[in-house]
């Protein structure tokens, strides 16, 4: 499958910190999850791929266009939808006015065509009924959907979503997942998240970052398989475990290198993620 995004050796340094360190990846159609702890470099990578920040080294293309030149950057941006980690709004705008404003920035200058597009994307995120409502009167989940609608305006081929499910309650998160899954049909979505459930439910590929580097790239099943034979149950916390916690049943779930004869458990994606971080020397919190 031809990759939508192809990056090699992306590096970016802030002062003494290597925010990105030789990041190479290929993204194809569908939803790819980007997992990593705080400070892993996820947002920096998204900003570089969204052409907001230039990398110090390395190169990448989006749908065949190279953003290293002004013309290439323009072409990439015409094919890009970007939902930042904390999308800002003019609170006095209605949902319609906000998406309309972003659509103008996306060069949809014809009024009729733009308004049709605004209605289409607001319908797509389930906000048809609150189009005329002011953003300050919308709930957090609805505001996030307005921002997603703005990202979808212009039908971009590459959609970059930076932790869109943070702060949403479980019901809102589930609705958002439905929308992201819908958005991933026929386009390439890169979804940064802390939630391994997001990845398990939505993504056909997953990338794990820590310390500015890619530590894993593969399918969610392959990430889960990393923990096969490395998750076990015990009545006491196993001192040899890299991470362990008491579960609701009272027994301990341990992740790491099990002792002989341990009572092995079926691994989850989160187990694979924790072990990948641990192998990378990143701080593991469980």
């Amino acid at each position, binding site marked *: 499958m031809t990759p939508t995004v192809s990056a090699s050796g992306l590096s*970016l340094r*802030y002062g003494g910190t290597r*925010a990105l360190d030789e990041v190479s990846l290929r993204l194809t159609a569908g939803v790819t999850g980007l997992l990593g702890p705080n400070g892993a470099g996820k*947002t*920096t990578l998204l*900003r570089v791929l*969204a*052409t*907001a*920040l*230039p990398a110090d080294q390395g190169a990448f293309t989006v749908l065949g266009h190279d953003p290293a030149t*002004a013309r290439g*950057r*323009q072409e990439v*941006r*015409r094919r*890009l939808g*970007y939902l*930042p*980690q904390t*999308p*800002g*709004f*003019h609170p*006095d*705008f*209605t949902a*319609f*006015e906000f998406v*309309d*404003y*972003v659509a*103008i*920035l*996306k*060069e949809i*200058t014809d*009024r009729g065509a*733009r*308004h*049709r597009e*605004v*209605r289409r994307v607001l319908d797509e995120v389930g906000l048809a009924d609150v*189009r*005329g409502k002011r953003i300050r009167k919308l709930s957090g989940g609805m505001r996030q959907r307005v*921002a997603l609608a*703005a*990202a979808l305006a212009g039908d971009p081929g590459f959609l970059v979503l930076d932790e869109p499910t943070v702060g949403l309650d479980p019901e809102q998160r589930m609705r958002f997942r439905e929308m992201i899954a819908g958005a991933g049909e026929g386009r390439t979505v890169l979804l940064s998240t802390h939630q391994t459930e997001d990845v398990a439910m939505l993504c056909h590929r997953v990338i794990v970052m820590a310390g500015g580097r890619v530590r894993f790239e593969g399918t969610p099943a392959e990430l889960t398989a990393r923990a096969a034979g490395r998750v076990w149950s015990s009545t006491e916390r196993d001192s040899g475990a890299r991470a362990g916690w008491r579960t609701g049943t009272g027994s301990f779930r341990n992740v790491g290198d099990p002792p002989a004869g341990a009572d092995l458990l079926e691994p989850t994606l989160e187990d694979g993620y924790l072990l990948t971080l641990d192998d990378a020397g990143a701080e593991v919190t469980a």
Partner: protein
Amino acid sequence: MSWHVPEEDLRAYVRGELAAPALWSADAHLTSCARCRGALAEVGDPVALDAGWERLDAELDAPRTGLLEKLLVRMGVAGHTARLLAATPVLRRSWLGAVVAVLLLSVAAGHSVRTGEFPTLFLALAPLLPLAGVALSYGPALDPTYEMAVVAPMHGFRLLMIRTVAVLAVVLALNGLATLALPAYGLRALAWLLPGLALTATGLALMPRLGPVLAPSLVGGAWAGLLLAADVLRAGADVPLAPFTVAGQGVAAVVAALAAGLLFLLRDRFDLFQGRAV
């Protein structure tokens, strides 16, 4: 009810071709007669009717066109550009701030200046208004939609210029009105104009390197420092400060031109994120 809207009139009504006063009669009657509303649905082309409803729905949702936007469009500004200008609350806030500041300045200047002196307070503060207005319209800390705007295909420099021109037009007009409130000083009261342009252009030109908060702050601080130094050096209270002399105005014009040139050279830098990544 003995009278109903004739079928021919209903057909004309659906087509939007029914003329007054028959149109008024039909309007009034349809609101209270279910039979005629039913007849209206039957005579109408359902596809055209749906399209009509959709158009109506779209118009109800569409952003309201304000006075300023209408005015801009009448002046020949493209509709979407007028929308960008008029729909930026940051601009409106800076606008309001500028209005209040200029009015206060005028009052303060009118009360503090004695005959023979220069309206120094007004001339010192007026150039800062366009600088502050432009700074308030741009940047990740002050524009809530900045991060979405910077990756949009519209050039960041173009957006910045649209906002800058809007802020300058308003603030310079208001400063001009305030100048008219100081008729005793004639053209000397316009000595804020070139320093104002120089400060604004310099603040913008330094933004790509220093950021959208530090650059205008430093430029404003440098202006204050320059005026204090000029005050120490001037010969007497009835002599204008150096920046407001003919020579000072010439220097301001040169600085404005140089800064504008530098700004143009750096225009592509406004297409990139000017803030720290997390």
